[in-house]
């Protein structure tokens, strides 16, 4: 009997038991359920084969098995543009930024967490480039390094070619009918380059002739500067311009000053 009393349950025993059970179940599940096939460093034909496999599984429903798009789905609507000639850059951009495979409909496709790993993305890109006709390729590494570009040139080019949609600091801007140019903060250099060269959705196309690779590199350097340099004056309020300032001064400034005035006029205790 004393043994029984001695080993009476601690109030937290139930909690510990539940947590332990969950842990065991989770580990068992992870051990048993097959994980996604981790593609090893696939190159060449292996890569294209993997890419084909992924393409047929994830993309052909909307873009067609022949990539010609215009595919009539169950509702009779045409879904998915043609991928003929879009090139590896397009695929790398769209899939790499999570925009593809597209989910919800709306004025435009939104950026999300990427659904595929970098290897898988490159595999699909290689497949599309080989199978559906040549187009802009994955850009050279040397043009993606912010250290290789001129920030002043990039600033000027950005201001003339990009700021009208993406805003002077790359914070994004409105287009018509609910479309928008997204913020460029946190976008990897490779995706910046690929967007310029492929012109996704509403964005116009800036081929390597209209904006040379070096010029694109300059723009990448400029964006890197904006992203990694603190705002010298303090909080930038999203770099949205006077609207943000006006909102701030009313919500914080005037309210604060009126609060001071109320304190001033109140009778002391």
């Amino acid at each position: 009997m004393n043994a029984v009393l001695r080993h009476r349950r601690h109030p937290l025993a139930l909690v510990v038991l539940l947590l332990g059970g969950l842990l065991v179940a989770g580990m068992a599940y992870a051990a048993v359920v097959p994980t996604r096939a981790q593609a090893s460093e696939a190159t060449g034909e292996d890569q294209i084969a993997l890419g084909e496999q992924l393409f047929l599984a994830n993309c052909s429903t909307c873009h067609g098995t022949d990539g010609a798009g215009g595919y009539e789905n169950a509702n009779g609507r045409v879904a998915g543009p043609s991928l003929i000639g879009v090139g590896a850059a397009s695929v790398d951009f769209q899939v790499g930024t999570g925009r593809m495979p597209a989910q919800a409909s709306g004025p435009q496709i939104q950026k999300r967490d990427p659904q595929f790993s970098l290897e898988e993305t490159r595999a699909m890109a290689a497949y599309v480039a080989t199978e559906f006709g040549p187009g802009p390729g994955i850009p050279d590494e040397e043009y993606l390094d912010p250290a290789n570009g001129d920030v002043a040139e990039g600033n000027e080019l950005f201001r003339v070619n990009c700021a009208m949609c993406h805003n002077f600091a790359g914070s994004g801007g409105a287009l018509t009918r609910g479309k928008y140019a997204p913020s460029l903060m946190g976008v990897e250099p490779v995706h910046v380059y690929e967007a310029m060269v492929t012109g996704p959705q509403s964005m116009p196309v800036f081929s390597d002739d209209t904006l040379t690779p070096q010029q694109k590199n300059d723009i990448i350097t400029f964006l890197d500067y904006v992203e990694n340099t603190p705002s010298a004056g303090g909080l930038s309020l999203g770099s949205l311009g006077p609207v943000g300032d006006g909102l701030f001064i009313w919500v914080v400034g005037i309210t604060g000053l009126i609060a001071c005035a109320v304190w001033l006029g109140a009778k002391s205790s």
Partner: protein
Amino acid sequence: MSDVHDNDNDDTARPVSTVRDSGTDAPGTTRTGTDLQTRRAPVPDRFEDPGLPPHRPRMADTDVAAAKRAERQVAFLFFLSIVGTVLTIVGYFAVPLRDETDAGRVLLSNILLGTGIFLTLFGIGTGAVHWAKTLMPDHEEIDERHQIEGGPQEQAEAVGILSNGIEDSGIGRRPLIRNTLVGALALAPLPAVVLLKDTGPNPEGVLAETLWQADTRLVTDPTGTLIRAEEIPIGGVVHVQPEGIEESSHFLDEKAKAAVLLIRLEPDEVAPEALAGSFAGIVAYSKICTHMGCPVALYEQTTHHLLCPCHQSTFDVLQNCKVIFGPSDRPLPQLPIDVDGDGYLVATDGFAEPVGPSYWEREQDLRRMTEES
């Protein structure tokens, strides 16, 4: 609006209350300047003003310890101000700026100096206010107001003084002086207006002239390189200015009229009216918005719409840049282009109409340009 005026639904008969008499008008006078009069019903019963409410003392008034505490608080706030002053001065010398290119350093200096100045000022301000609130006497005092308008005697005296003075000047009896004086004074400001004439030249149709003429080559903005047609991809956009614009004496003025946008469409997408001035699906339109002159630079590749960011005028490139939304009224003028012997894009003519915002004489300028071409 047929609500009865007496909204309290009680059935006590009461004369309608009228405006409280402050004693400045004789009863029954018409004060409105029209034929309307206020109703002067007998003043009904009203509550009496109970006078100032009893004074409620503050803690610092009755409790010596509380007063001492308030005093210490005020002193602390003033001391905080001194701390702020020291912080500002220290921060100023501790964070030099001239040799640095670092935005982070500027930010640090800004925060240090700003916080220091904040403490300096806020400390004095809150200290003074807290002192007034807690320690300075807070018995309400009363001042009497005096009517702004002078009493009848004062007004009569003033009128008398004025009329004596005016009579002394003799202006009433000497209309010749009066009339010439009025004439002279009325005309005297005119030179001031006339002197402003040389602040700028006359317009003289300048608004309708741009640097674009036949055989002016297109170059990229801002880098100034010539453009080949095959360099522009379908769905691509190039910002363009006329070759040689940097040499012009007022190059920003010229750019404000000459900025052009090149767009490459599929050849069958070009509007019929624009076909003659296009080349292989490449069309060139003035970038200066016909509403208020902002650059219409946002090109939506999928819809082929051009959006102006200032007031959202939207132009449809497939319809020769006709306005499809927003406050603008006129389409963007097209710049007719072709390819020259070396394969570079070149204008075949200037614009057929004045570019940019409207102005009063625009129709005249347009007619002149049409006749000249």
